[in-house]
Each structure stands twice: as C-alpha cells, then as structure tokens.
C-alpha cells in the first residue's frame, strides 16, 4: 500500500497517527511538557476529519463494488440465457437438417420404384402400338422416364459424393460433343434471349471431329457443364455472348464466361449449398453440385466476377 500513489492519502494519515502517538509517549516519559499538549489538539481534529473522509470513501467504494457486482451478475445471467437459446436453436437446426436429408434420401429411393413401372410398361406399350401419333407420345413418355431416372440416380450419386462414398470410375471423356449437346438442349432459351454461344479451343474455333479429352465420368461432366452453362445463359444480359474456352495444358481448363455479374450478396458463398439469388426457380444446388462433381473427379472450380468484366467460372480437370 505504501508504494501506491492511490493510497498516499491513507498512508499520510497513518504517519500522522504515528507522530501523534510518539508525542503522547514523549508526554508520558516527561520529555514533552503538558503545555505542548495544546499543540496536539488541532492536528488531531484535522486527522479525525480526514479519517471520517477516508471511511466515507471506503463505504462508497464498497457500494460501488456492489453495483459493479450486480452489473456482472446481470451480464452473466443474460449470457447464460442467450447461450441456452443458441443451444436450443442449434438443436432445432440440426434436427431440421437431419429431417431434410432423411426426406431427400427416402424420396430418391421411393421415386425409383414407380419409375420402373413407367419405363417398363411404356417400353411394352411401345412394342404393341402402331398408330404414329401414339408411338410418338409413348416414346416421349419413355424418354421422360429415362430422364427422370438419370436425374434420380445423379441425385443419389451427389448424396454419396457429399459423404465421400462415391466410387469414381475415370474414363476418357471428350468435352466437345458434350458442349454441343448442351448448346442444343438450350437452343430455345438462347433464341428467346437473343444470345450466342461461342466455343474456342486453345484460342481458335475447334475443327469438326477434334477432341478435348479429360479424365472423368461422362455423366458427371455433362451434368456439371450443363448446370454451369445454363446458369451463364440465364445470367447473361440479352443480346450478349456466352463464351466457352477450352485450354490444353498440364491441367485441362474450361472457362465459361458471361457478361452478367454475380449479385454482391452471394459472391463469397457462390459454391455453397442452397445459395441462390435473383432466380425464380433457383434451388441453390446447381453450382454447389457442379463443384462437388468437379472435385469428385479430382478437379477444381473457381469463380471471378465484377460488374465490368462479367462472370467467369473456371474448371480444371486432369487431362486424358
């Protein structure tokens, strides 16, 4: 306490008490005259006042300590309450996520059973039909059944990929015919939005029968490119161009560019699950599953976007 400037007042008071005691002792021993006692009264009264002040301050400090303690107790209680609320919310979120996954999984499996009947019976029906219109209708029915089946299968595969349980069987895949197929599938949309798709191979238009081969699975490459190109078409301003460039190198590189920019709010989370913005029917699964499929095939994907340069998604995959 003696070294602290905060307690110098108290320290001085103690010293003054000691001096007063010394003087009283001197009086008892007779070295101080009784007349000198008068001189002690004034300082003692001052000391009494100072002592009262110190005691008042001490009492106030105790009261302040109580107020501070109350503040801490209140804060702790509020903290405990919000922690409890957070835990509760976490539990509910976990339960909701589990339920959603369960429903997804059940749906995928349950969808396949009725599909067997649709595909099986429409195949049988097709064999017995003779009327051209009916044959055409039945073929459409069969094709739709197969499309739905491949969607369900892909969805099951994505589920396995998420859990690292997908068995990847790499093969040589030529990307160019896939791109043409995707462009064909989107022809109506391209026309209605007055858009043009250009495909370049190592900086020039590819020649017919030319190949750009990667090591992957055809269905996965088709799906991931289909998703990304569809996104680019939907995001591109009308009358612009969607550019697809293929570049050979140590890694095969595919870039898909459109002049639109990704909304600021989702830029950082572009590849995350359920992230979508500005699309009426967006599920937020397109880019997420595209990246999942690229990574499952030992590839990678990234995106750059700005209002000036538009958006470029780059996919890198091992070449064949």
């Amino acid at each position, binding site marked *: 306490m003696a*070294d*602290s*400037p*905060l307690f110098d007042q108290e320290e001085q008071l103690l010293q003054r008490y000691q001096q007063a005691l010394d003087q009283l002792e001197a009086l008892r021993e007779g070295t101080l005259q009784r007349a000198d006692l008068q001189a002690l009264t004034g300082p003692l009264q001052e000391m009494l006042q100072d002592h009262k002040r110190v005691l008042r*301050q001490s009492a*106030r*400090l105790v*009261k*302040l*300590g109580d*107020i*501070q303690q*109350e*503040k801490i107790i*209140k804060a702790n209680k509020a903290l405990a309450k919000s922690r409890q609320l957070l835990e509760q919310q976490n539990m509910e979120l976990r339960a909701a996520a589990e339920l959603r996954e369960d429903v997804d999984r059940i749906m995928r499996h349950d969808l396949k059973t009725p599909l067997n009947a649709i595909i099986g019976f429409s195949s049988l029906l097709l064999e017995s039909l003779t009327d051209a219109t009916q044959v055409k209708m039945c073929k459409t029915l069969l094709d739709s059944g197969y499309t739905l089946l491949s969607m369900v299968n892909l969805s099951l595969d994505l589920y396995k990929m998420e859990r690292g349980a997908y068995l990847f069987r790499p093969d040589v895949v030529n990307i160019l015919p896939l791109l043409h197929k995707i462009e064909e599938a989107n022809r109506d949309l391209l026309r209605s939005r007055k858009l043009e798709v250009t495909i370049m191979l190592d900086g020039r238009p590819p020649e017919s029968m030319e190949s750009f081969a990667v090591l992957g699975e055809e269905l996965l490459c088709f799906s991931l490119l289909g998703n990304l190109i569809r996104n680019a078409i939907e995001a591109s301003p009308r009358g612009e161009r969607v550019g697809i460039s293929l570049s050979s190198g140590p890694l095969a590189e595919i870039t898909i560019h459109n002049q639109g920019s990704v909304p600021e709010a989702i830029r950082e989370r572009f590849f995350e699950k359920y992230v979508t913005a500005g699309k009426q029917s967006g599920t937020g699964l397109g880019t997420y599953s595209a990246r999942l499929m690229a990574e499952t095939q030992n590839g990678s994907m990234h995106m750059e976007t700005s209002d000036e340069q538009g958006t470029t998604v780059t996919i890198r995959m091992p070449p064949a």
Partner: protein
Amino acid sequence: METIQLAGADRTPTILFDFGRNHFSLAGESYPEDVSAFYGGLLSQLTKHLDSLQGADICFEFQFIYFNSSTAKVVMRLFETLEQAAQNGNRVVVNWYHEEDDDNMREMGEEFAEDLQAAQFNLLAKQG
C-alpha cells in the same frame, strides 16, 4: 504539457488528456493488472496541471463500459481533484456517459458525483 493520447487495449481505456484545451477523457473498459502503474503518472500530471490553473474552462468526460474496483478508487481521486480545481476558481464540467439501458453505470456516476459542489456534473445517456 503535451497531450497524452493512449489507444484502448484489452484491459485499459482510451485516454485523451489534452492539457492545452483542458479537455480530458477516459473511455472504454478499465481493469489494468497494476492500476497504480497505469494511472499513477497520469494522476500526478493531471493534479499538477489543474493545481496551476485559475479561471480556466475544464471538461472531463467519462465514457466507461466497465471498470473494476481499483479503477473506482482512481475515479474517486479524479473527482476530488476536479472538485478542488473548481473550488480554486475554474469552471469545471464533468460529463458522465452511460448506455441508455445501463442503470448500474448511471448509478455509479451518481454515487461519484455526490461530493461535487463547485464542479458541474452531467449524466448523459448514449442513444442506441
């Protein structure tokens, strides 16, 4: 005397002692490991400066979020020093800020202000 300006840290407040303008402020949290080491020099410089003034306009602002009991002792000393400066013929204004919903901080301000007579004390609630 040169202005003292210290950025707030984990356990110590933001400090501005502008001796030229006689404007002083403490803001943030205060629970230094060694209160005497942290505040000792500041207190003695301030006391020395205020003792030398007469007829001056002095403003001290407290904007604490939290302080510990040792800091409370420092604040008590600051109030004494400021009251003394007011009694010496200076115009002293002490502004005590607290969050609108922080009743404890307001109550502590009132507690400190009890001994102020010559100095003017203002309790100010911060909005939002």
